[in-house]
């Protein structure tokens, strides 16, 4: 793949560079708030990027991605609660649990298409939400406070804001690199082929649902990692974090940025969360503006921000 210099690539490069130097700015100005805000943004960007893998490239509209955030988070929280503080155990458990959940849910949901798929992933995520609410040992509805962040020996200190920020950023860049490798691999091309014409791919001899399922599981696993990061970031995990509106927000982030564009979800997440932050400083009823804005963006700005940037190149 040849790198081209055009508006969208320049914007992407600037945003990426900005994210890398952000802690420096925060140190110089003593603005800690911006660092914590962007740590959160980066974690959600990773989740949105994982959703983009199946939505943008796989054509699977999952309305249940918040479940993985919850599963990854609860894996960290529950293990910490039971006295296992090592990140070397917590994080693999978070990833494996998310992957297993994705495998079961995916195998069932992929029997359907289109709207059915949206509804079913939504319903299963809601089931996960109810299960989390029912775990009375781990706080039930009230959630679980995580008193100690994951312990990675002397390797990295998650309680250090800057180190944790760079860990999250590393995970985000790593995740996007992984997704980039996937979509340009033979496997990824097959998945994209299935999105555009399932029958034809089936006819050439590809088992469409197996490819879809593997893609679905990879996406869920990456999102589970975001969940583990998020739990460490908030030092708290509760069912509210996996409520279905969270899944909706993740979809919005992907679509804001531009579905099916590699870096789009990152831009979309930054845009969405900054807007939310801005509006909520301005009014308590921020959703009163966000809701109709979302409607307008869907109606008039298809392709999201990356789509708009792409238009500059052609026009």
């Amino acid at each position, binding site marked *: 793949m040849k790198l081209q210099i055009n508006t969208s690539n320049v914007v992407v490069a600037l945003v990426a560079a900005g994210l890398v130097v952000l802690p420096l700015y925060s140190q110089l100005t003593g603005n800690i708030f911006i660092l914590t805000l962007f740590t959160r943004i980066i974690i959600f960007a990773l989740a949105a990027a994982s959703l983009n893998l199946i939505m943008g490239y796989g054509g699977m509209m999952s309305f249940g991605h918040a479940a993985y955030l919850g599963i990854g988070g609860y894996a960290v929280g529950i293990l910490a609660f039971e006295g296992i503080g090592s990140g070397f155990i917590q994080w693999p458990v978070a990833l494996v649990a998310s992957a297993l959940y994705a495998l079961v849910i995916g195998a069932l949901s992929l029997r359907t298409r289109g709207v059915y798929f949206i509804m079913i992933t939504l319903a299963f995520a809601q089931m996960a939400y109810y299960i989390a609410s029912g775990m009375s040992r781990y706080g039930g509805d009230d959630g679980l406070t995580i008193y100690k962040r994951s312990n990675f020996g002397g390797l990295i200190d998650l309680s250090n804001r800057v180190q944790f920020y760079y860990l999250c950023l590393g995970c985000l860049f790593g995740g996007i690199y992984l997704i980039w490798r996937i979509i340009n691999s033979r496997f990824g091309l097959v998945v994209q082929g299935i999105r555009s014409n399932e029958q034809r791919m089936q006819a050439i001899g590809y088992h469409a649902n197996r490819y879809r399922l593997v893609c679905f599981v990879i996406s869920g696993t990456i999102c589970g990692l975001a969940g583990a990061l998020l739990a460490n970031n908030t030092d708290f995990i509760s069912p509210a974090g996996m409520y279905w509106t969270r899944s909706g927000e993740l979809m919005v982030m992907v679509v804001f940025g531009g579905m099916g564009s590699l870096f789009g979800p990152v831009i979309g997440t930054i845009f969405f969360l900054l807007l939310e932050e801005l509006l909520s400083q301005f009014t308590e009823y921020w959703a*009163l503006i966000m*809701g109709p804005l979302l409607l307008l963006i869907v109606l008039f700005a298809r392709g999201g921000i990356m789509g708009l940037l792409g238009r500059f190149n052609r026009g």
Partner: protein
Amino acid sequence: MVLVEQSLNGLQFGLLLFLLAAGLTLVFGIMDFVNLAHGSLYMMGAYFAATFTAWTGSFILGVLLALGATLLLGIVLEFVALRHLYGRDHLDQVLATFGLILFFNDAVRLIWGPAGLALPLPAWLTVPVQIIPGVYYPAYRLSIIIVALAVAALLYVVVMRTRIGMLIRAGASNREMIGALGINIKLLFTLVFGLGAALAGLAGLMQAPILTVQIGMGENILILAFVIIVIGGIGSIRGAFLAAIFVGMIDTLGRAFLPDLLRTVLSSAAASTAAPALSSMLIYLLMAIVLVVRPEGLFPAAKR
């Protein structure tokens, strides 16, 4: 005794779910439109009823006004925003109506405040009625069952036996064709959407006196309505009816009897931890089973 009562509760819950699912499946079947904001209309129905009842001082009058208001709201909503989304991707529709949910929740918080409202019942609806010797059942719940059954029957007659119903069914099987035949399809769509909104509002306001009227009350039940549509088969009203009763029964009976059932196999402590989680999972397990056996739902509408 308890079994009869809980079965009636299940039936009543199922019928409410049906009212919600019927509007959803009607709108989806005819306009190919997924409306997440259907749950918001359910919520609005309840808020309208609580407000109008307080204003007029009459439960019946308040309920009738609320029904009209929800119908009107549905029509306005369709006219202003939703009709521009027909023919778009389902994803676009989901996102746009998700935006509407955010809007409605905050609008309600702004107008009515974050605390819930109560919709008090008139005295004549609070007395228990003896349904079979020795078994009493609250008059209000009984009246929900009667009203919902009547509405379901009316819906059946309208859809199967009238000209409008014929057009609705024709629209569901081929939209372009009935447009080409000179039917004002835009008007039909608006009408169907208003009908669906009124059904959702009816479900919301009938549920309101049992639970409290609160923000987000339409969301959990909307997801149940999705489950019902998936089980029943999209676009099928008959499927929605049977699946709704089924889901209502399983959910209610599961919550009522599962803890005791589990206690016979497990230790009491383990049962009381497992039972709530398991009973809230029951319907999703049911959905998973239906998906494995019949991915297109139990009673799919005619293939398009």
